[in-house]
């Protein structure tokens, strides 16, 4: 245990009742702290008062109808992920005081049937009563009892003259489904409520009981353009749970794949923002760059979405010298073309006028809602996991984080542009420093005597950090997988920060946040 860890645990212990922390264990790059049931929420608050950043909340079932609730925190002081867990049958809601945890806890309630006391909003989140609900809760198998009057009520602000504007779930563009309910006074938005989970496919449940090494195709279906990042985060979780040591070459290849993914994914946002203000010339140019990058992906990995490369214990295919030289030469050409498109786009005064000061996110709100990714970085919150909790080959590559101050659409545009350039630099660096060695470590997930194997994994996906919690049974099968993507965090940001803007700005703001609906809904 490092000095910082000891110091932090001391501070937390002091602010709690004696004996509140039952165990404090440093394992696999994370701190696992087991707490008494009643001390979980005070401990979370004590951690947050000492600089820990709320990441996510998960729940899993335990024998005898009990549940284990885990809250994940990023602790910059320790450079670690902190996982606070408690077992029991009744829990108090953290979201009563920590606004950021609201969706996590509503999801917990839906998954398990637990009633968290003091939760500010007890409506169902992932189930839509009007579309039919399953007979039992997916985690723990408690029977699902429907409330008598379980219509999903969306309330306005109550201002006189306000009317409702309902949008979705099927939208006009080529995008995913979600329902937006605007409460508007003329053009101005007073309140926005989003209703998601139309794409809830039961990812977490459908992998239970399957071998940990076989479910990567499912993980890659969480969100299309974050396939690699989610895959790597999941693999790290399993590898940490089993204590596997991944060869260096595999980690370098994974990092290259993650950066290639970031490039094409960011290009789609960079093109999306001009599209939504009607600046088609710029949008088309970004789209051409994206198509060319996806053709490069297919050339080097066989999949336009880089799927099937990442496996537990390493990577499935090698990056030969020829492939690396194809990548670097394409990227050199790409950089020049990107510079041209960038100049063309940012020289347009009408475009700048439209995106400047639109949808500004105050830094305080970003911190309160625990926003992640380029959205948070655009308002000066440094949260890139490649720097904060280094993983894969990033500690070697000397990653530079890009942040802006203003938090508006322009800032998000500039952050994403800077990240694409940084990704190009990283890929070139990784390609030229590629170590030799094996692609996979020995037997991937062996059986183990250890009854409870759990691991946490994270990665900085194009949209922001994602987190996975994996529990394995003795025979290397998944007992519980819990996943939180960046979009799940950031949707509440859009919901809370759009009020005050006007309706025609919403598509633009939404696009600049660029959240994955499927990644939220799982």
């Amino acid at each position, binding site marked *: 245990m490092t000095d910082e860890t000891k110091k932090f645990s001391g501070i937390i212990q002091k602010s709690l009742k004696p004996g509140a922390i039952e165990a404090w264990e440093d394992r696999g790059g994370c701190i696992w702290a087991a707490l008494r049931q009643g001390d979980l929420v005070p401990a979370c608050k004590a951690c947050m008062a000492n600089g820990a950043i709320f990441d996510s909340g998960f729940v899993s079932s335990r024998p005898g109808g009990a549940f284990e609730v885990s809250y994940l925190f990023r602790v910059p002081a320790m450079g670690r992920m902190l996982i606070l867990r408690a077992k029991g049958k009744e829990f108090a809601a953290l979201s009563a005081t920590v606004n950021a945890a609201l969706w996590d806890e509503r999801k917990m309630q839906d998954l398990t049937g637990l009633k968290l006391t003091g939760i500010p909003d007890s409506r169902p989140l992932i*189930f*839509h009563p*009007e*579309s*039919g609900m*399953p007979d039992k809760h*997916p985690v723990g198998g408690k029977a699902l009892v429907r409330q008598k009057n379980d219509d999903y009520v969306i309330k306005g602000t109550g201002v006189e003259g306000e009317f409702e504007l309902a949008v979705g*779930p*099927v939208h*006009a*563009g*080529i*995008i*995913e*489904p979600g329902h937006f309910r605007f409460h508007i006074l003329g053009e101005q938005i007073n309140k926005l409520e989003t209703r998601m*989970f*139309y*794409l*809830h*496919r*039961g*990812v977490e*449940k*459908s992998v239970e009981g399957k071998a940990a090494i076989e479910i990567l*195709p*499912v993980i*890659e*279906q*969480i*969100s*299309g*353009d974050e*396939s690699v990042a989610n895959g790597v985060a999941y693999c790290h979780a399993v590898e940490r749970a089993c204590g596997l040591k991944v060869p260096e070459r595999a980690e370098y290849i994974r990092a290259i794949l993650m950066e290639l993914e970031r490039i094409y994914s960011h290009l*789609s946002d960079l093109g999306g923002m001009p599209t939504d203000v009607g600046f088609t010339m710029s949008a*088309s*140019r970004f*789209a*051409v760059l*994206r*198509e*060319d990058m*996806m053709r490069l992906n*297919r050339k080097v990995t066989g*999949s*336009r*979405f880089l*799927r099937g490369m990442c496996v537990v214990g390493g990577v499935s295919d090698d990056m030969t010298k020829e492939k690396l030289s194809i990548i670097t030469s394409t990227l050199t050409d790409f950089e020049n*073309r990107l510079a041209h498109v960038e100049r063309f786009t940012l020289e347009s005064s009408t475009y700048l006028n439209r995106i400047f000061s639109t949808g500004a996110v105050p830094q305080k709100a970003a911190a309160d809602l625990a926003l992640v990714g380029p959205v948070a970085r655009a308002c000066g919150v440094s949260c890139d996991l490649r720097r904060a909790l280094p993983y894969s080959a990033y500690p070697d590559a000397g990653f530079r984080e890009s942040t802006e101050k203003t938090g508006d659409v322009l800032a998000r545009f500039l952050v994403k542009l800077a990240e694409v350039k940084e990704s190009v630099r990283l890929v070139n660096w990784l390609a030229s420093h590629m170590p030799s060695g094996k692609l996979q470590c020995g037997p991937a997930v062996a059986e183990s005597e250890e009854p409870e194997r759990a691991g946490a994994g994270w990665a900085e996906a194009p949209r922001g950090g994602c987190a996975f919690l994996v529990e394995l049974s003795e025979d290397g099968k998944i007992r519980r997988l819990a996943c939180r993507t960046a979009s799940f965090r950031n949707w509440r940001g859009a919901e809370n920060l759009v009020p005050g803007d006007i309706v025609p700005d919403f598509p633009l703001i939404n696009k600049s946040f660029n959240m*994955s*609906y*499927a*990644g939220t809904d799982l």
Partner: protein
Amino acid sequence: MLETLKLAFEYFPDRVSEKSPDPAVREVALLLKQRPMSLFSRSIHVRMVDAGSPNDVELEEQLMMAPRVDAERFGVHFVASPRHADVLIVTGPVTQNMRVALIKSYEAMAEPRAVVAAGDGACTGWPFKGSYALAGDGRVESAVPVDVKVPGNPPDPYELLAGILKAGMIIDQKRKGKSK
């Protein structure tokens, strides 16, 4: 001047020929030969409904409309409402929460209409088959009648385009059958 010319070539769409090394491009070329373009008719208006895909097919659909593939030059056009559409592209697997929205979208379409199921999830329910959150087995077929299936994880823009052109031919047949 030279700069402008260079740019024009850089953003030029792909050549679609029957000799292309890509089988999907060859298929599109063949379909275009069987169902030639005409000046004032035969365009295909498409509406998409994402009923459960992880956004990958949507990204490919966006690229299908972008300058490289540029489906608009073959008369394929995405419209905002199912009421304006000839063809419905559905991606899947169909979730319980999206089932009603999908059926309503289909019912809003005017006859003759055709449905394309795009992606492995839409065609087979893979990989969530049996999940509590899917509508039945997750196949689009179980919710609305499907005319063309385009498998793939996900299908690339040319495969999608070929699927839409096939749906166009099916609509032609349906129209002929009606007028008789």
